[in-house]
């Protein structure tokens, strides 16, 4: 252990440990405080001012406006639409993603299947790819006339869908792509969860005459419960932060049908430089996610 020859070993005092702890923690805590916690607090402050492009040039033209930004926000149809869009994406996309994740996890967990890790890798690949890159690819796959998707639909006798141009189909299009991209991650978590279920329980159920479907509902689902819950809320929280897909594929259109809360915050803050107003959007996002997280904690406690 590197004791220098001739030195007297000395006991490490708690204050030594304390000092070391301080040193070890300082870089991380300073960085996180200055570049994360502080800005989050500052967002709140920003949201009660009318900080905008005039203010960037001459900060003295900033005015304190109290809750005016929030009032404007809650009266803004664009905001409610963004909120609806985001909820639509999370509430439909979330469960869909989880269903596919669970399905593929069950497939990969089946005893009769070999080459498990090969398929697992393939299924995980979409998750690893760069979102911007795949958004661009899917934009072309969704092309009304030349896209592969409509070509496939044509074989099934379905008329071409204007995926990214029709306000009713644009968000489903983005949901579909997100399910494809994200299911791999939860799939891994489910596989771990499935592997943790003791085989005896399945055997017992089989002895009782339960078929595979019955076994799934009686054994698998209940025991996967906590994992399912955890995964659901984490996925939804992630989906609330939707930004890159609409930015790259639809610029929030058509008719703002794919404008998410974060995209609206970006537009107001970094395109029009209405930073006070954008900060109020950010704060609302924070509250929504906080509520979702608290719900998760509460549900977890109940089921623990």
């Amino acid at each position, binding site marked *: 252990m590197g004791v220098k020859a001739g030195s007297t070993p000395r006991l490490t005092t708690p204050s030594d440990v304390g000092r070391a702890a301080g040193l070890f923690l300082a870089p991380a805590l300073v960085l996180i405080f200055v*570049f994360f916690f502080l800005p989050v607090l500052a967002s709140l402050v920003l949201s009660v001012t009318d900080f905008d492009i005039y203010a960037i040039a001459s900060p003295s033209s900033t005015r304190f406006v109290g809750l005016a930004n929030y009032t404007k926000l809650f009266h803004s149809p664009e905001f409610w639409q963004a909120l609806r869009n985001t909820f639509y994406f999370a509430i439909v996309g979330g469960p869909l993603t989880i269903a596919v994740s669970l399905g593929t996890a069950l497939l990969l967990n089946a005893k009769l299947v070999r080459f498990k890790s090969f398929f697992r890798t393939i299924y995980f690949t979409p998750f690893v790819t760069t979102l911007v890159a795949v958004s661009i690819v899917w934009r072309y796959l969704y092309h009304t006339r030349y896209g592969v998707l409509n070509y496939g639909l044509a074989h099934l006798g379905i008329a071409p869908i204007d995926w990214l141009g029709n306000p009713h189909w644009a968000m489903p299009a983005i949901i579909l792509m997100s399910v494809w991209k994200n299911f791999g991650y939860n799939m891994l978590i489910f596989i771990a969860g499935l592997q943790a279920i003791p085989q005896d329980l399945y055997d017992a159920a089989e002895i009782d005459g339960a078929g595979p479907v019955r076994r799934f509902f009686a054994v698998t689902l209940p025991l996967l419960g906590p994992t399912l819950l955890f995964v659901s809320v984490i996925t939804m929280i992630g989906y609330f932060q939707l930004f890159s897909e609409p930015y790259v594929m639809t610029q929030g259109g058509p008719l703002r049908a794919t404008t998410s809360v974060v995209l609206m915050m970006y537009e107001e803050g970094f395109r029009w430089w209405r930073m006070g107003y954008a*900060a109020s959007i950010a704060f609302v996002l924070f509250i929504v996610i906080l509520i979702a997280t608290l719900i998760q904690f509460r549900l977890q406690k109940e089921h623990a």
Partner: protein
Amino acid sequence: MSRTNPRLVVVEGASTGGYGGLDSARTRRRLTQIVLYALLIIGALIALMPMLWMLSASFMPTGEASTYPPHFIPSRITFSHYADLFTRLNLGRYLFNSALIAVVVTAVSLVINSLAGYAFAKLRFRGRDRAFRILSLGLVLPVQVAMLPLFLLMKNLHLINTYWGVIIPGMASIFGIFLIRQYALSIPDDMLDAARIDGASELRIYWSVVVPGILPILATLAIWTFLATWNDFMWPLIVLSDEAHYTLPVALANLSGEHVQDTELMMAGSVLTVIPVLSVFLFLQRYYIQGVMAGSVKG
């Protein structure tokens, strides 16, 4: 892998042919297997199809990707789009930027996060648990909430449009600290105490005892951080205004605005963006996947 169910003992050689007949259980098994494999293969095709088309289209001559019925295989292979990207459109520069930022953030954050994670796990000091709980609260905060003031802060520090402007916010992560702490908890205290008795400094202990002990999670975190930083989009988009500093995702989004007409060119750009992360993942997937699954069992 699960044990074979002792009730399904297959009697070989009792039937005249290969399948069917007396061995209905075996047939059922085979059929199930076929169905499962069929589903798996269809799933694999769905998972891979977009990227295979992306690859294929990147080699198509201009205009071929916008035809009906769509072509899946290029009529002839051309490298002109790749050439264009590297010559006219400067992609080499963006690749360099992405690599530089990803490597620096990974290296630095690994050190900073592991020091902090270890400290929270094993160093006893006053207020440790309270501090950690406050830190964990940060996991709930969506990072976008910080971006507006962070931008103004960076402006005042003159870090807008610099590599540091992108690197610094990534140098410490609550999630990374969490992960490391979780793993470091399992380091036996006796080992650490023994080292202290031998007179080793805390820093020495960290380097010689702790780091080797948490190598697997460090590997996982390194891969994770590298991928996340490479793929990061929103913050680099906000903070970088000068194309000389653009990372690949930002440059790609930029190009797609300008060249929305050039399908094949954009596909080539996407291929180049995705290959590094895919390679890192494929070579090191064991660590990555282990990390995800291990983390989830505990969580």
